[in-house]
């Protein structure tokens, strides 16, 4: 993956999707995962639910919202990173929920989609506000690890490494490749009976380019 543009904060209008357990099959059905690209998934986002003409994300007053306020266990299910690409291509820069599927959260941060976990009461308050006022705006600050909106302020935690990568716009693979010496040392001490899927090969080393 190439280096990203550094992200330090995001401010945008919020829209609430008040459903628990929004799984990645809802975020993007498997039939859209046949594509070979990392972008161009806007049409796939919530494709099943979008058949309902009243679906909240399609209401004109929420057009242009960039912060999705979800509920419990958002992004549960499949490991498909397409779910993150679809949210991003659909215009979202952040998802605030009371919990996330583990794989989804990791995928989200890697792609610069801020998956922010807040207590249930905070998420409910944000959802209420976004429903009452489509212009309701939320700010997520990565440096201070805070969410501010409508005069309220909440703190959140993040995986330190992922936060640093994002704020500095670093390519994670390049960072790991800088550890080549440690990886090679580990490899030379591995047990000889460990499995191999093909003929043994000498490690192919890529240059660490930060």
């Amino acid at each position, binding site marked *: *993956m*190439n280096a990203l543009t550094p992200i330090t904060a995001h401010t945008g209008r919020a829209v609430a999707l*008040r*459903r*628990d*357990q929004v*799984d990645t*099959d*809802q975020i993007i*059905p*498997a*039939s859209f*995962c*046949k*594509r*070979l*690209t*990392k972008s161009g998934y806007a049409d796939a986002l919530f494709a*099943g639910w979008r058949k309902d003409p009243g679906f909240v994300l399609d209401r004109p007053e929420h057009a242009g919202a960039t912060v999705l306020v979800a*509920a*419990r*266990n958002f992004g*549960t*299910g*499949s*490991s*498909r*990173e397409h779910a*993150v690409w679809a949210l991003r291509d659909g215009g979202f820069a952040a998802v605030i929920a009371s*919990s996330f*599927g*583990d*794989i989804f959260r*990791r*995928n989200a941060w*890697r*792609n610069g989609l801020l998956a922010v976990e807040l207590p249930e009461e905070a998420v409910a308050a944000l959802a209420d506000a976004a429903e009452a006022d489509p212009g309701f705006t939320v700010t997520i600050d990565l440096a201070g690890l805070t969410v501010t909106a409508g005069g309220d302020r909440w703190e959140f935690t993040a*995986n330190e*490494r992922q936060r640093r990568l994002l704020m500095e716009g670093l390519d*994670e*693979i390049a960072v*790991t*490749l800088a*550890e080549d010496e440690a*990886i090679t040392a*580990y490899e030379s001490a*591995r*047990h000889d*009976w*460990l*499995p191999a*899927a*093909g003929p*043994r*090969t000498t*490690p*192919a*080393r*890529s*240059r660490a380019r930060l």
Partner: protein
Amino acid sequence: MSAPRTLIDKVWDGHVVRRRADDPDLIYIDLHLVHEASSPQAFDGLRGTGRRVRRPDLTLALEDHNVPTDSLTIADAMGREQVETLRRNCAEHGITVYSLGDGRQGIVHVVAPERGLVQPGTTVVCGDSHTSTHGAFGALAFGVGTGDVEHVLATQTMPLARPRTMAVEFAGALPPDVTAKDLMLAVIAQIGANGANGHVIEYRGAAIEGLTMEGRMTLCNLSVEAGARAGMIAPDEVTYRYLKGRPDAPSGDAWDRAERHWRTLPTDEGARFDRTVTVDAASLAPFVTWGTNPGQAVPVDSAVPDPEAFADEADRAAAERALAYMDLAPGTPMRSIAVDTVFIGSCTNGRIEDLRAAADVMRGRKVADGVTALVVPGSMAVRRAAEEEGLHEVFAAAGAQWRLSGCSMCLGMNADRLVGPRRCASTSNRNYEGRQGDRARTHLVSPAVAAATAVTGRLTPPAGLR
């Protein structure tokens, strides 16, 4: 004497490439499984940066998500292109690929274990959430996104925060007709579809020791449906018997050295888990889902729950929404629910023991009128083994379809897909809205319940036929 450690701790500690304060551990990956649907963008990323696959020898690719199960030709142009892209990428990087038409082809999580590639104490990743399957061998195995696929291809490592540990202790022995599938549906119903978020589970207790490797794989496979990063079971004699003699398992002197190491892996007496959950195995019955997440499950002999009975407001709303989608009314006996499709297969329940259990129920019986039953072996090796035992004849005589191997009707990505508001008893892993096809309604069940349901046309435990 060092402090007692869990199986999870031991495998983790044995794979730390680099540890540093205030940074996640860099963990070495022993085996990387790749399939066509989650890898094309990862290989593109390598090309774009001029990087190479560090260890093609520790990487195995399979074609499973897009493949048809009634032909060796992929009719769908996009699916075909994805499979052909995998073949080109593997050829470019020297990665072994078991392609459609190869006798070793099948679902990635069925093939890797049956080849003997998954060994106790190893780390396994794949761009697929059901990679948790391989924890059955005492491996630390978990699903990752495409960005991590690229990271592992390039570095054979992953920077990972140490997970929390959870013991799921099964008390008592399993009653008859209660399978690993029922056990895990009961666990998820008890703790919820996010009950194990952030944790790696170790399954423990006599009920686990009594399971075959196939049953253990079903159990660990479904760990992710409880939100767990991974699920693990300590290796024992059952594990060693399963592995010995498999094509990619160690042999001779290497086996002896490996086994000596494997025997050091089980959790030490007195080791602490961050959390412990106890499940009364002896009180369980065959389970079936009524809703649209795997935690919405009840014993098949009970009824569709009333959303009003849920104390939590969000649970109540989720139940109402699920029942509307499933077109079910509260109080309806589960056994009165009629299905039009039965799917037996997937990485959860597509192994030889699963097919034997289904065949035992179907033997001498017929699939009910109006029901389409698909039996899809999880690999071509499973298919051959089943045919050697004559299972395919049992299914054919019953009127069920006998297919080639692949992910099939588990996920609505290939030609095996439900069209319209069909209702399916499925041995797969997810009952999400639209998972098996647009508007499809899924009831997750064990292979024995699926087979009995095929015979009666209504959700039925095997005891219902006796």
